[in-house]
């Protein structure tokens, strides 16, 4: 159980976590990169934006 850096909610993680893996927070939905595994440290994953007529 780790805290989401975006919204502060608890994030449930599976056991065989690997660094670099991308999970999402089930509260705010943000994509999180696993930085460290024991104990788990998460950070916002970088993302690509869509360009809508801009």
């Amino acid at each position, binding site marked *: 159980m780790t805290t989401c850096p*975006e919204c502060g909610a608890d994030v449930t993680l599976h056991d065989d976590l690997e660094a670099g893996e991308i999970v*999402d927070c089930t*509260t705010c*939905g*943000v*994509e999180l990169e696993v930085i460290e595994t024991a104990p788990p440290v998460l950070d916002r*994953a970088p993302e690509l934006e869509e360009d809508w007529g801009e």
Partner: protein
Amino acid sequence: MTGGASAAAATDADDAAAETVTASVVGASGFAGGELLRLLAGHPHFDIQQATSRQNAGKSVGSTHPPLRGTELRYTEPTDLESVDVLFAATPHGVSMGRIDEFFEVADTVVDLSADFRLDTAAQYDAWYDGHDAPAYLAKAEYALPELNRANLPGADLIASGGCNATATILGLYPLFEHGIFGGETGATDGGVADEVGGDERIVVDVKVGSSEGGAGGGAASSHAERSGVVRPYAPTGHRHEAEIEQFLGTPVAFTCHAVDMVRGASATSHVFPDGPVSKGDLWSAYRESYEDEPFVRLAAGGSGVYRYPEPKAVAGTNVAEVGFELDPSNERVVVFSAIDNVMKGSAGQAVHAANIALGFAETAGLDFAGLHPVGSP
């Protein structure tokens, strides 16, 4: 949903669990009335007694509402009401206020979906509608927007189910008021919030709604050929739900409504300029605290994938309100999004939710449909 039935919901649920009460629906051939029939038919604690329609009296309820096909229930005249535990009224505004004494002759509890009993005073009605026929009932009526005033509902006799656009707007803004991010000191009104907000603080609410908000009646502007593909300002100013919102949040809002191409759905985008600086973390804390135990509120504020913010099609057919926000640092603005299904959380679902609380049933009874994916124009 965010997490199962709320603590509040569970309170009396067990006592009432075995109980079944009878219910009738006045205005059952309409869109909100048909949804009430559908929900009551699938509800563990309600038995439908009557469904009224003047135009369809004698016909089966499935003749107008495909999900009810095969049901033996037939429409009766709204003047032939039998005794019942709960009477739901889903008639145009003005009808219930004229028949409210009759309604209480046949029923112990009346749940009204129209605007007739939502405001506190007759003066407000004169200002926003056309005068009130039964002002004595205004004080007795409990406005139902359970997330905000759940405590008022147990045992209520007359429930005024919150309006669709007002519900969407209020649910979006409420955490900002509750947590002092906007509106300063709050003085609760009717279970609600501030009524002494500084008048110069402006909230702009820009709402987009589906065609089912107009009811089953139809008319030239709502024909498929004219209404398809629109972004049509239909209430540019002076929308009557402003009254409800102001009564509840204690501050006026600058409200504009657009018809867009969907059938179900109301989506409110509120543009708020808080007095002081606010961070995304502050916002997350406020919204999570306000809603984390709510069975029918789901937060969506950024995230990833296709569905990042609240949107009506993600809640179509459900009693869920999606609520979310974004922070615009460049103009010190909080943009709040909230999306509901106007026929569910905006009317019939909210009414059943309120009745569940009033009668001591589990809050989520009969309201557990989680929605569809994919779904088109809901």
